[in-house]
């Protein structure tokens, strides 16, 4: 058998795991590993400018491809800088392995230079974390890390590697385990047949059903099963922010997304439904609004791979624990075999009601002859990219506008930090996608607040030639904070105003990219077309949009799902 050092075993394990890219930043405790990386060319390393960005890059890659991302950083500050990125991935259940250098095991606990208890610091925001206690364990630890990260409900796994585990001159026999066996970790592989049967009976009897789908459908690669089931049943479907793309947004059965800034028709349909089929979603507070007022007449079927997601906030009448693709497949075959059919008459009158809500059109904005509306920028880019771009966002108003006005017909194309709401996510996530999808259009919708939280990555984009398009919806304020201050604090704009913004055009140019400023409405379309025509250039598009725009609909705080503001003056 081959003899390898710990560092070489680590890199070899990554090769054997099929890892193409790792994103990271070197430092003392990781130097043996970086040296091993240098002596091979199968695993490519992308050098970021801040460790948080490495994690978001890995995250963007994972969301777009469905494969786990990989990060490599050093101990201490290198490791702690990854925490926001790890928490982001944890909240959205993104598979990822974060490899952290650590001071030598003999120094642990002595407050050594660049020592941080990364196992302890990361514990609340990881699916699991592992430390290497002997170099020989490395292949098994790495195999375990990827297995845990990618199976069941996915999530980030941290591996802490003390420097003396990777010493170059200590060599051990290397073999990469084919299988992992963990007696205490056995994610469900199928749903309970009896529960699925019960659920199908309820679907057939429903008068006012709604399908409510979440990010679990995308993570579970179950979009096609969901689409087929929805079409077979003829039910209306809505999805969460994380579930965008799990069902084609331009299809007539799709009601748009639901929740705090969801569509009028989706929130109304949920509130008035008698049966909710929840697929891979978790009744998050940004969806349910006040839980005690949530959908009073609805019975609930809840499919999720994670039993802890079921009946956490809203009690399920029929819980089904299992992978969404397998459960939906089984459901679909039962629906097809069943002698019962969905109640056509009830469904027709339910659709009539829904069409009335849809005609009322809650998702609207007023255009202006001279001011550019953020919504119209999104709509225009949706048309100009044929609805086929990968879209990442940061967090705030621009994120909601992008989610509302870019219609996604495919999964894995809408990439945002839905759970943690991390500003600074968009650019690095876009980079992670562009790297592996060079032929696809990758747009990063952002705002002048968020983009400055990881703007240093423009330098990484130059180094690796990542021509993403940054669409900065510049309203010269922290728009969402300002909106809440307008609505709840009598417009006292405490710290939500950004004075002394940089000249983003010059900034982009300083990093070797192209900057385009759009501040006249008539320039919007021609300039955006020019931007999109620059295929091989990163373009920073700084668009001056209406400073006073709010995101609507917006659910009324502590209300039910149907209580919404539809504009600054209309409340339903």
């Amino acid at each position, binding site marked *: 058998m081959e003899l390898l050092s710990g560092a070489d075993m680590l890199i070899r394990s990554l090769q054997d795991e099929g890892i193409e890219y790792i994103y990271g930043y070197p430092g003392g405790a990781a130097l043996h590993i970086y040296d091993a990386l240098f002596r091979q060319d199968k695993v490519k390393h992308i050098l970021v400018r801040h460790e948080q960005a490495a994690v978001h890059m890995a995250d963007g890659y994972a969301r777009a491809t469905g494969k786990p991302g990989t990060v490599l950083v050093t101990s201490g500050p290198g490791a702690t800088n990854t925490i926001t990125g790890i928490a982001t991935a944890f909240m959205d259940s993104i598979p990822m392995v974060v490899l952290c250098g650590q001071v030598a095991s003999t120094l642990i606990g002595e407050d050594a230079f660049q020592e941080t208890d990364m*196992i*302890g610091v990361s*514990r*609340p925001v990881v*699916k*699991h974390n592992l*430390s290497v206690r002997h170099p020989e364990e490395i292949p098994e630890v790495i195999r375990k890390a990827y297995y*845990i990260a990618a199976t069941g409900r996915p999530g980030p796994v941290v591996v802490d590697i003390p420097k003396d585990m990777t010493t170059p001159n200590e060599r051990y026999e290397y073999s990469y385990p084919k299988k992992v066996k*963990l*007696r*205490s*970790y056995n994610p469900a592989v199928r749903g309970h047949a009896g529960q699925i049967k019960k659920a199908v009976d309820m679907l057939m009897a429903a008068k006012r059903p709604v399908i409510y789908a979440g990010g679990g459908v995308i993570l579970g690669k179950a979009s096609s099963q969901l689409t087929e089931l929805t079409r077979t049943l003829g039910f209306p479907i809505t999805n969460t922010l994380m579930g965008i793309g799990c069902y084609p947004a331009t299809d007539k059965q799709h009601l748009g997304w639901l929740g705090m800034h969801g569509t009028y028709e989706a929130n109304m349909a949920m509130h008035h439904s008698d049966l909710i089929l929840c697929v891979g979603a978790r009744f998050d507070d940004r969806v349910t609004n006040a839980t005690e007022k949530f959908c009073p007449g609805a019975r609930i079927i809840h499919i999720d791979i*994670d*039993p*802890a997601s079921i*009946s*956490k906030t809203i*009690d399920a009448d029929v819980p089904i624990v299992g992978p969404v693709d397998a459960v939906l497949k089984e459901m679909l075959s039962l629906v097809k075999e069943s002698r019962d059919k969905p109640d056509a008459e009830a469904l027709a009158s339910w659709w009539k009601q829904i069409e009335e809500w849809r005609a009322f059109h809650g998702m609207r904005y007023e255009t202006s002859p001279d001011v550019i509306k953020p919504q119209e920028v999104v709509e225009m880019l949706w048309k100009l990219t044929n609805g086929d771009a990968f879209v990442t966002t940061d967090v705030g108003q621009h994120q909601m506008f992008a989610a509302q006005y870019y219609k996604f017909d495919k999964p894995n194309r809408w990439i945002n930090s839905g759970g943690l709401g991390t500003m600074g996510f968009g650019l690095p996530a876009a980079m992670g996608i562009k790297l592996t999808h060079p032929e696809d259009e990758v747009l990063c919708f952002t705002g002048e607040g968020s983009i400055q939280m990881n703007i240093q990555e423009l330098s990484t984009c130059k180094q690796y030639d990542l021509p993403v398009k940054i669409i900065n919806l510049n309203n010269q304020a922290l728009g969402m904070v300002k909106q809440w201050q307008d609505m709840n604090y009598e417009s006292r704009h405490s710290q939500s105003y950004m004075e002394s913004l940089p000249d983003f055009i010059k900034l982009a140019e300083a990093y070797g990219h192209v900057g385009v400023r759009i501040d006249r409405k008539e320039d919007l379309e021609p300039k955006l077309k020019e931007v999109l025509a620059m295929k091989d250039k990163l373009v920073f598009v700084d668009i001056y949009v209406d400073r006073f725009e709010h995101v609507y609909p917006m659910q009324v705080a502590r209300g039910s799902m149907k209580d919404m503001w539809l504009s600054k003056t209309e409340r339903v």
Partner: protein
Amino acid sequence: MRRIISVLLENEPGALSRVVGLFSQRNYNIETLTVAPTEDETLSRLTVTTTGSDKVIEQITKQLNKLIEVVKLVDLTEGAHIERELMLVKLKATGSQRAEIKRTVDIFRGQIVDVTSSVYTVQLAGDSEKLDGFIQAVGTSGVLEVVRTGVSGIARGEKVLSL
């Protein structure tokens, strides 16, 4: 409602802190916690008593089950079970108190395990209520020091928590 949750845990460094961390992260109560290796040295058995509504308890057991190192768990309060806690108490014991304390210890079926001219150290095992009852019976004024192990529990009958 008070519950006793018994957990088989991988006997590995860091496993206990994950369990304890979970309780604080998710705002659950821990009233008592005991942990020790079992006859299988790869496993620890951990017993935690907690309070909460049925919904909270359901979440606690589900969240515990999600921890990779948790191999198996049972809510002992769901069935007939035996619970025991061990207490060591140092009591002021002079003059007529000595005989009175001895009688009380006998009534509670405890043992005096250490004696000085002015102090008795009493060992007492039982469920938590019995231990509370003993302290009440001897009166807190005479109590110099109390140490309790926290609750351990096991199901009655043939039910076992094992692999």
